[in-house]
């Protein structure tokens, strides 16, 4: 019980930290926000249920008024702005990523990459694009054009989620709850 609560809380904090740490850059030197990487890791490391709860706790605290989204955004206004779909999609993305890691028998790194790809990119963008289409009053294809520029970065993040989950599984096999 205690362990479940602390893992969920610390990973909610991890999503926040990865969104706020400014200095992360990819090999090419392009700065990225690693917030969605944090959401992917919630699922791939904690598994479906705990990953879902960690991301939900994070989203709940954003709603309560903590500036935890990348760029220091937060508060109820986030839920009326065009990026609302991505924020609401975080828990579902973590759930799907965790579910895939739990249910496949592939090596942990590959399973985590697949989970992050389907949960953290595909599912998250379905939510994000739907929210943007609704708020901006545009069709779904038009809204997806608006976010297309971010997809390559997120595909890279799915790869990183695979590497990092594999690393954590090697360093702390008893802590990677998605494979216990």
């Amino acid at each position, binding site marked *: 019980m205690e*362990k479940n609560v602390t893992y969920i*809380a610390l990973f909610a*904090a991890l999503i926040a930290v990865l969104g*706020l740490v400014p200095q*992360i850059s990819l090999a090419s030197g392009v700065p990225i926000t690693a917030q969605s990487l944090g959401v992917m890791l919630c699922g791939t490391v904690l598994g479906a249920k705990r990953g879902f709860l960690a991301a939900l706790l994070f989203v709940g605290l954003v709603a309560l008024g903590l500036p935890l989204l990348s760029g220091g955004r*937060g*508060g109820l206004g986030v*839920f*009326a702005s065009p990026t609302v779909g991505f924020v609401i999609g975080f828990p579902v993305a973590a759930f799907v990523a965790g579910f895939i890691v739990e249910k496949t028998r592939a090596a942990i790194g590959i399973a985590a990459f697949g989970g992050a790809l389907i949960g953290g990119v595909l599912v998250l963008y379905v939510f994000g694009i739907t929210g943007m289409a609704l708020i901006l009053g545009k069709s779904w294809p038009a809204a997806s054009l608006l976010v297309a520029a971010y997809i390559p970065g997120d595909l890279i993040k799915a790869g990183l989620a695979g590497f990092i989950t594999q690393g954590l599984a090697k360093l702390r096999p008893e802590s990677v709850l998605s494979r216990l």
Partner: protein
Amino acid sequence: MLTLTSPFETPLHRVAAASKLLGLAAFSIGLFALQDLWAIILAGGLAATVYLACGLGFARFGAAMLRPLWPFLTILTLWHGWTGEWVAGLIIGGKMLVAVALANLVTMTTRLEDMIDVVERAAAPLARFGARPKVLAVAIALVIRFTPVLMDKAGQLGQAWRARSSRRVNWRIVLPISLMALDDAERVAEAIRARGGL
């Protein structure tokens, strides 16, 4: 940790959090139904008046919180400039601005403790189904406490990186940051258990 609650004390700070949230829900639903440009302009003027009535510093803070919307307003301007449907664009953009401004108003005038209080009271009936509001309160407190802790540790890792390498800090730093989150979770769980558990 810093919250988005405004340091400028306003009369709205004294209104109960639950009533503000219900009011916001009602206003947002009403706003969503509006289709008339003049009604939206009126709502916008009303929102701006409330902000200004709360003080100039408060209004400036509120305007700063709307800044993340500008890329979307630019997109709307370009889009509707291209199609020529200016009225439709103004309605969409205006609705978005007013809805976000109203929601921000509640966030800016409600202290975090009061928000958490509302959540706990709303979650209390769930206790009958086996959920435990106390556990939720502990989880919230842990996130609020450990986000700055983890942030500090991540900053130290970054400094250590820069002291030892001429390369820029890159994604590899995420692994040790995640590792610290895992280890902290393990230690805090032990500490809570040692104190009688949840």
